[in-house]
């Protein structure tokens, strides 16, 4: 009581007159630090976008290639080896979409079943066994996937189907294994965060386990699972090395799944060492990078829309 009388503590009381209080300084420092980091991040991202866009748009504005010629043209001859230079990237866009969609089609059912197995069917040892396997799959470098694909999948496809074995089928199979972990882990998270009562109410109505999974659990987690599928597709779309190793890299739209083809990413990695900065060929590669970035952006938008739907 006496201490308070001697030195009354008020809100405006400042032990260091003329300066900011210590806790205000701390608050300010922490706030500034995080703000600077955030700004730095935004600056880096924006400058990457600006750089890619400035290079990529040069194809259209400086080299005089038209948008439609670029996007829908099916002839790729940037150095003009057969007459006029041609900048049609349709085959690569087709290749990218074909491989990633096919990969998602192969991987989704497997992943959904794996996550159901881990969460609903055998939550005990199923999770203990599968979880590390899935995590391991996620950690394998893409060059290893490509190497395995080249030595195992390509010869197998060559034996089973007409053609060289390389092509969209081989690319999709390799990619599907690569995106398994993405879809599985997102699916598993969604399934295990389901309210327990939801399942039990279905059981309590006399539903079997399968009916419960099929009618209650899957419809409820569908938006989350779709998010996983889209993220997996985004990963497949952007993967370069593993695909490049098994797809054959022929610059045309293939007539079958077992014929050599190309994707946007495989062409960029393959050609970038052979071009000179500023030439139309190099600029065309940048335009493809811009298209890739744009697609990634679309994938992000789709995921956002799905998440919004998920909240209901």
């Amino acid at each position, binding site marked *: 009581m006496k201490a308070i009388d001697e030195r009354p503590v008020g809100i405006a009381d400042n032990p260091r007159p003329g300066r900011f209080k210590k806790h205000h300084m701390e608050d300010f420092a922490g706030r500034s630090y995080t703000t600077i980091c955030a700004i730095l991040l935004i600056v880096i991202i924006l400058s990457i976008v600006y750089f890619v866009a400035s290079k990529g748009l040069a194809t259209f504005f400086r080299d005089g290639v038209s948008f439609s010629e670029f996007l829908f043209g099916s002839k790729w001859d940037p150095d003009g080896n057969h007459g006029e230079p041609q900048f049609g990237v349709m085959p690569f866009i087709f290749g990218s979409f074909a491989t990633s969609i096919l990969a998602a089609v192969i991987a989704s059912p497997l992943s959904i079943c794996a996550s159901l197995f881990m969460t609903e069917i055998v939550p*005990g040892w199923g999770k203990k066994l599968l979880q590390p396997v899935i995590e391991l799959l996620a950690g394998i470098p893409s060059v290893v996937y490509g190497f395995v694909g080249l030595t195992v999948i390509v010869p197998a496809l060559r034996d089973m189907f007409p053609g060289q074995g390389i092509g969209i089928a081989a690319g999709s199979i390799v990619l599907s294994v690569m995106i398994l972990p993405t879809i599985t882990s997102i699916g598993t998270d969604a399934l295990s965060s389901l*309210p327990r*009562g*939801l*399942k*039990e*109410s*279905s*059981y*309590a*109505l*006399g*539903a*079997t386990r399968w*009916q419960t999974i099929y*009618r*209650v659990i899957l*419809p*409820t987690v569908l938006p989350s699972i779709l998010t996983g599928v889209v993220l997996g597709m985004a990963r497949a779309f952007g993967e370069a090395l593993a695909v490049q190793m098994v797809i054959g890299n022929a610059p045309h739209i293939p007539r079958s799944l077992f014929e050599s083809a190309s994707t946007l990413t495989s062409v960029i990695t393959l050609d970038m060492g052979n071009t000179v900065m500023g030439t139309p060929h190099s600029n065309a590669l940048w335009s493809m990078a811009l298209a890739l970035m744009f697609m990634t952006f679309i994938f992000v938008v789709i995921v956002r829309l799905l998440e919004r739907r998920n909240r*209901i």
Partner: protein
Amino acid sequence: MQQTSTTFRTENLSVFYGTYEAVKNISLNFPDKSVTALIGPSGCGKSTFLRSLNRMNDEISQAVIKGKIWIGGEDINDPSTDVIQLRQKIGMVWQKPNPFYKSIYENIAFGPKYHGVKNKKELDQIVESSLRKAALWDEVKDRLKQSALSLSGGQQQRLCIARALSVNPGILLLDEPASALDPVSTSKVEELIVELKKELSIVIVTHNMQQAARISDYTAYFYLGTLMEHNDTEIIFTNPANAMTQEYISGRFG
């Protein structure tokens, strides 16, 4: 108690989680067309006991059940019992309202559809009568196609009760059905329970002593997995035989 009391009862029922005995040797009668309240401090085994009555503990791998649960002369834990049919006869509602992420209509039609009702007219009828029984029909009849999650918490809980009623159970198990609700919704749910007991026997777990006193005909006091006392609610609340029951219901213990 009445003659019908033998139709639904447990006989020396014990439930183990691994080596832990959560429910110890409990024999209880649940007379027809009446409400039995299970009270007791948290962790006393009353929810475990309730969950074993429709074999919901099957979903927990370590749970082992000993003793018998009789429904109309059948032991529900007998290997020959079809658990799917059994659960159709015993409805259950949980503490937290948990409607399916579907429309109000689909929530109710869900159970009957499982059990083979395909006729649209018949389904409409079941939906209406179940919602009427749960005193929810007037509030939702114009928006049956809307998401069940658009309802308030109290309405969701009544929807869950209606959903449980949709498969025409003879027994309703309620696990603290009103503890997550506001007082107005709580009283609605309580009125509903009193109304429903005209048709079925109800077992309710509750932490609310007044609620047990208001709505139940019989009360069982659980403590550490044992049944300490079971009697008419009036006797339990006015003149309990056990000193611990007395202390618990008056709030001095637990």
